[in-house]
């Protein structure tokens, strides 16, 4: 756990989220917004579906890194990058906290 880098976490979150919404990772470039995701996804149709994809991604992070990411509340014009940053921030903070105990 101590060895996981920011880029590794980012890749994991990005890939898992892309899988949940049914899009290719290349379709989730940093400027893409959550509204774009709902519009383009073949799997989800509204913001509650989107929220469930956050939850599934958070569960995958918990399984992989052993930390619990709280789900962010963002309006639909938020970029994917901001979402990924929020996940990274929480994972790093909890890992740091665990290491210092």
């Amino acid at each position, binding site marked *: 756990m101590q060895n996981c880098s920011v880029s590794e976490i980012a890749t994991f979150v990005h890939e898992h989220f892309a899988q949940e919404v049914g899009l290719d990772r290349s379709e989730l470039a940093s400027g893409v917004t959550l509204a774009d995701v709902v519009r383009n996804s073949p799997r989800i*149709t*509204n*913001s*509650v579906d989107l*929220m*469930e994809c956050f*939850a*599934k991604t*958070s*569960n*995958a992070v*918990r399984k992989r890194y052993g930390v619990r990411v*709280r*789900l962010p*509340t963002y*309006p*639909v*014009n938020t970029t994917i990058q901001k979402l990924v940053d929020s996940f990274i921030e929480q994972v790093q903070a909890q890992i740091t906290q665990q290491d210092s105990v």
Partner: protein
Amino acid sequence: MMQQTQIAAVGRKTTNSEPTVWPNLYASLAQEQATLLDVIWEQHRYHEHRRWDVQALVGAIDLSALTPADRFFVANAGRAELTTKPGADRVTRLADKECRRWLGTHDSLAKIMQACGTWSRYWNEEEAHHETAFNFIAAALALNPPDDLTVIEYRKIFPDDDMLRTLTLLACSEINAAVTYNEYAHRTAEPGLKALLLQVGADEVQHMRYFISFAKALVDSQMYEPKSVLAIAHLFVRPGGEIYGATRDTKASRDTHVNWWDHLDEAQGGVSLLMGVKKKLAMTYKMVQQITGIVVSSPEDIEDKWMDLIAQEQSA
């Protein structure tokens, strides 16, 4: 026909007992302890029992005595209530669609959907009282009442979603409305407005009970998943969630429909339609338990239990 209905309803003591929201709807219909006519009769009894006269209640208000806070509250309530008609129209359409979908494969569920779609006519009519009462006052006092284009905009019919999510969202919306009306009823000094608000608030509580009853029936059928209930509860109670509506830093912009809680004026003098958050949270926790049997006690608890249900699904 009338005689048959009376005979079918004898077991419900229709003439002597207080009408109520049908308890354990799924069991009643699945075990053939009741027919749709029994359920509809009880819905109608309750509707008649709770009827009231908008002109009489509005006529009892001394409009000249309304304070700036009263006026602010009434104007916002009138605008918010415009969205209930498209909400009810959506339930009517969605319930019938779901009824046809289940008919033949799960008839008890088809009956529940029909009971819900039928009840939506009462909901629509009762909400019309609220909208017209508040907007009459807003127009009479020139409180910037909604213009024609605003009315048309607020009438956009909501898009379809999963039925259990829809019913839970409507229960949450009724909780917000009921608590808000009740809170302000205890703040206003004008007795006529107080009486109107208490009446409207009581209607909203009754509507909430109906939505909870239909949602519980769907969960009881085991064809709809409790995670949907927790998802909607989470949507409302999470930090920055729907319960905080117009006070959020950033609001959702939609071109499909209007959520009333996103379009309220900034609070004035401590008055807004977002009062009573603590009470709203408590009622949401109770709603989750009534529909699913799952006990929750905080926004974090709802998130945790919802995510646990999703994790179980992921690992299945």
